[in-house]
């Protein structure tokens, strides 16, 4: 069944139906039309630097195994044994020449090839064609500035095209200095009872909630007091559902650690030279790569995937990243401040979970569900800005990015194929 998307999202009027946060049919269609088609983030290159290194993750609800083969190239497969569908690799990361399924012992190489099957001669009479039973690969895999993405859809546009104007904004997070970024070891993983779109839209454009939702952390000194600043800054939609929150050029929202504030100032000329004149106009601090990768570079430097686990649940997988070229004391300050701000115990992040949970749970009420959500802030006060490469709000607070995020969502949900999608 294909749910009728008409009327669920009205981006012209800034209205979104609450049905899309709760209804199982709509969720199933999201798995098909969004998660099985879009480019999804898998992991960072610095997590799997050596031949044989692997990392296990999900694309939508499909378990995926990302592996660097013995020759050094990265591949990704369904982490599912071809025999009876057992989960093949049960570790979160490691190094492998081969992995053997725990059920009957089929063995796969780090290129995804089925290399050994017990009782092949006696029980299968040597008649099983191993080549037909390799791991199922993703349709396309590519890397942008160390971030590895894949899609299950052979018809999806290439990654660079999928990112479009978002690429520059990714540069502003991941390619500020020579060498780009690396991740701190370990991934925060935790369960939140909310729909995946709530955190995705929040990181994509909710500058509004910061000075209220996070006031306790700001008051307790976990951030500079950016509540009181009234700089420029804008919500930017670089297209295709991607969203970025920016401050005015030169503004930062770092944790108030002297070494971090100094590091931002000291590296600024180099960063501007590298990123170009747009970096004088805007400082991107938070954003969402459609659909479910979000990045923050303010009081914490983190990127995270909102893995969908049913309409009302997600797993957050969050990393902390640092400029590779940063000195050790800056990396350490970013590690410590990163996890104190964002992550399960984050003094900012812990207050978000509650709100997303309740926004999801109240959608259960059939009467509550009749009333659309309001995403009207700044409606009509946004314009296409060629210098910023996207639709930008006229004021630093707006729900213009929300409207673009949900417009893209509705377009993808309605489109049978990539060619049917509006630009």
């Amino acid at each position, binding site marked *: 069944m294909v749910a009728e998307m008409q009327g669920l999202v009205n981006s012209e009027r800034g209205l979104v139906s609450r049905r899309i946060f709760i209804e199982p049919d709509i969720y199933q269609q999201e798995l098909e039309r969004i998660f099985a088609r879009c480019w999804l983030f898998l992991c960072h290159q610095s997590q799997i630097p050596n031949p044989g290194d692997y990392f296990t993750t999900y694309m939508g609800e499909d378990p995926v195994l990302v592996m660097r083969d013995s020759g050094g190239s990265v591949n990704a497969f369904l982490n599912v044994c071809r025999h009876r569908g057992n989960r093949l690799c049960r570790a979160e990361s490691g190094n492998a020449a081969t992995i053997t399924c725990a059920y009957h012992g089929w063995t796969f190489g*780090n290129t995804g090839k089925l290399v050994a099957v017990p009782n092949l001669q006696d029980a299968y009479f040597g008649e099983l064609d191993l080549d037909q039973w390799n791991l199922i690969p993703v349709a396309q895999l590519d890397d942008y500035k160390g971030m590895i993405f894949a899609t299950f859809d052979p018809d999806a546009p290439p990654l660079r095209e999928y990112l479009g104007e978002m690429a520059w904004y990714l540069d502003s997070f991941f390619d500020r200095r020579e060498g780009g970024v690396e991740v*701190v070891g370990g991934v*925060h993983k935790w369960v939140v009872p909310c729909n995946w779109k709530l955190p995705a839209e929040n990181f994509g454009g909710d500058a509004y909630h910061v000075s209220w939702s996070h006031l306790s952390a700001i008051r307790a000194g976990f951030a500079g007091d950016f509540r009181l600043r009234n700089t420029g800054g804008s919500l930017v939609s670089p297209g295709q559902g991607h969203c970025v929150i920016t401050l005015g050029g030169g503004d930062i929202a770092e944790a108030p650690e002297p070494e971090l504030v100094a590091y931002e100032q000291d590296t600024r000329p180099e960063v501007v030279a590298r990123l170009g004149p747009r970096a004088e106009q805007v400082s991107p601090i938070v954003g969402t790569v459609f659909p479910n990768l979000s990045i923050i570079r303010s009081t914490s430097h983190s990127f995270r995937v909102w893995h969908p686990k049913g309409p009302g649940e997600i797993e957050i997988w969050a990393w902390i990243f640092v400029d590779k070229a940063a000195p050790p004391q800056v990396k350490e300050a970013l590690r410590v401040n990163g996890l104190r701000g964002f992550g399960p115990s984050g003094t900012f992040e*812990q207050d978000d979970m509650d709100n997303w949970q309740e926004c999801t749970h109240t959608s259960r009420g059939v009467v509550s569900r009749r009333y659309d959500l309001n995403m009207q802030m700044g409606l009509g006060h946004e314009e296409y800005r060629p210098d910023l490469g996207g639709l930008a709000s006229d004021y630093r607070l707006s729900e213009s990015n929300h409207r673009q995020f949900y417009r893209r969502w509705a377009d993808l949900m309605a489109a049978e194929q990539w060619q049917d999608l509006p630009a």
Partner: protein
Amino acid sequence: MQVTPDLLREIEQFLYREARLLDNRQFHRWAELLAEDLRYWMPMRSNRYPANSKAIASLDEAHQETHDLTEAHELAVMDETRESLIRRIERLDSGFAWAEDPPSRTRHFISNVELEPTENPAEIRAYSNFILYRTRGEREEDFYVGSREDILRRTGETWQITYRKIVLDQSVLSAKNVSNFF
């Protein structure tokens, strides 16, 4: 410091009293038990194949990653000092700490207390297990289960915590957040 039945009893009582302060939300009194040089650290668990696993044939032994706990320079659920814990308490005092507003109701259960001497005669190492039960709102329930390794320092009549390593048993935390103290 020598481990005696009296000392064990004294440390157990100290840990129970600490738990009561936390459950009663007397966080500033709890903070008085924290030493100036405290490291309060909750690393993360993960699923790894052990070195003897036959599920995997490593290409390069050196990168097999068999440790299931993040290390000091890696991510942690919490990595705190006395000063940062006090800032967390001040956050709760602000009237804007939505994750704890209305507050959690918690119950700490501390067991399996074992003592071990350290090189420092003023300090003792205490291992314990814990269950932290949290309920909040109408029917939210979380169980945080794990172990602690403390180093406690004798200060006059009482003790201060100078090191606490908290190891949760879960890899993917089933709680939506960690807004309580352990």
